[in-house]
């Protein structure tokens, strides 16, 4: 059984002026503990797809199965990390941000604090538990967001270009770090990006989207051992292959 399965998903944005078919007939599946990356040109529907899986948008057609069961809305089985730093609540300290999901579950105060601190430690921020988001750098804020999404223990982690707004050095560090966290927590990850090198570095498997309307165009399995050497010939060949799928005409 697949952990996540999308069956013939379609979505139309209907504004008063025009209809945009953002997704058409999208089907793919993700295995438990798999790291799946989704790449594609800007505007090809990656964010839309992720928002559907997260339950923020309802598909016009098709269905989504998680653990074999059809789901229609939001659920605590899926954690979400957005691209924007502004996703953290500015009125809560780092620790209280991480505690939010636990609070919703009704977990006691002491236990909450303990779990939150554990996850802050996982992202190397235990010293900053009492800092407010605006007192942290961009990379630190994204790490708090990751800790927050992990803390209430969802089986699936959905990430929409979480490191796109970071500088190159920090981004590389965060990628290494994300692989470590993923190996430690064994989450199923869907990770959206338009950076091909990043996808090849992170993924077990890459799905390439093509635009207008957004559909799955190709799948590439990355059979490289971790940690991956970004300058090796094999790595560069994978990169070439994915880029080729992206730019190729229909």
């Amino acid at each position, binding site marked *: 059984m697949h952990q996540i399965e999308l069956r013939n998903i379609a979505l139309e944005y209907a504004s008063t002026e025009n209809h945009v078919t953002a997704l058409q007939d999208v089907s793919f599946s993700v295995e438990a503990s798999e790291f799946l990356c989704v790449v594609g040109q800007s505007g090809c529907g990656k964010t839309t797809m992720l928002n559907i899986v*997260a*339950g*923020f948008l309802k598909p016009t057609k098709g269905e989504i199965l998680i653990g074999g069961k059809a789901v229609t809305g*939001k*659920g*605590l089985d*899926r*954690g*979400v990390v*957005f691209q*924007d730093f*502004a*996703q953290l*609540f*500015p*009125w809560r300290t780092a620790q209280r941000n991480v505690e*939010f*999901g636990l*609070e*919703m*579950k009704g977990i006691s105060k002491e236990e909450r604090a303990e779990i939150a601190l554990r996850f802050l430690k996982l992202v190397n921020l235990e010293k900053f538990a009492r800092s*407010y*988001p*605006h*007192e942290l750098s961009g990379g630190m804020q994204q790490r708090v967001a990751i800790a*927050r*999404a992990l803390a*209430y223990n969802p089986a699936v982690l959905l990430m929409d270009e979480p490191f796109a707004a970071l500088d190159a050095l920090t981004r590389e560090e965060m990628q290494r770090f994300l692989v470590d966290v993923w190996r430690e927590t064994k989450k199923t990850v869907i990770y959206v990006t338009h950076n091909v090198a990043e996808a090849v570095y992170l993924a077990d498997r890459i799905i390439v989207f093509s635009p207008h309307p957004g559909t799955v165009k190709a799948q590439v399995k990355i059979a490289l051992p971790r940690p991956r050497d970004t300058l090796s010939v094999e790595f560069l060949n994978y990169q070439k292959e994915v880029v080729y799928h992206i730019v190729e005409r229909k």
Partner: protein
Amino acid sequence: MNRSRTRAALGALCSVGLACLIWEGFARSGLFAPALAPSLTLIVSALGRMVLSGAMLWHALYTLYRVLFGFVLASAVGVFIGILMGRFRRVERFFVPLVSVLMPIPSLAWVPVFILWFGLGNAATIALVFYAATFPAIFNTWTGVRSVNRLWIRSAEAMGADERALFQKVVLPGSLPFVIAGLRQAFARAWIAVVGGEMIAATNWGLGWVIFDSKEFLNTDVMMASLAVIGIIGFTFERLIFQTIEQRTVSRWGMVKTVRG
């Protein structure tokens, strides 16, 4: 931080002192009759006399009672309506036209009407303060609720927040900068309304009434003393209360920068 604060306070003291000196020279130059331009000694002694006799305390208490009564009522009603407007389209559609027509009417235009309806005294002044303070509270709360970041709502929903938790833990704190700004503006309006209202509609007590009453007897010194008290109370609320609330909450969270000056 602390040093620059003391320096700013010292500087303010110097400039106020200098302004007082200039006034003193002007008052003693004999260009105007002392009844029109009383010297500082006269003003200070009038203030001292009124404080010692307890009259000033009573005037101030009356004014504070009226302004706080109206302001608290207006804040409760205004924030409540503002939140409903921000959350429900129907409520919004109903209130927006009303608010946009009533808000530009200066509250003091209602004084004569309120006097006829409520008589001279407390009720008319409190009604006036209420009218003045409600609209800024409504308007800012509404804006605040609408401008709560979509990402916060999505994140909270993803973490399992229901309608109630969403409202208490995200919408309310997220719109707080606007709500505080609204209450601050509401208080400033209320303070103007209470002084103006007392001038026209009060009987025997209140800082506005003292000023207006002393005009009859050319008691310019009493007038100026009351003006000083009005300034001090207004300044206290603005600086000590609202600014402290803001510093403890929204600027601590980095949601607004506090402007000094």
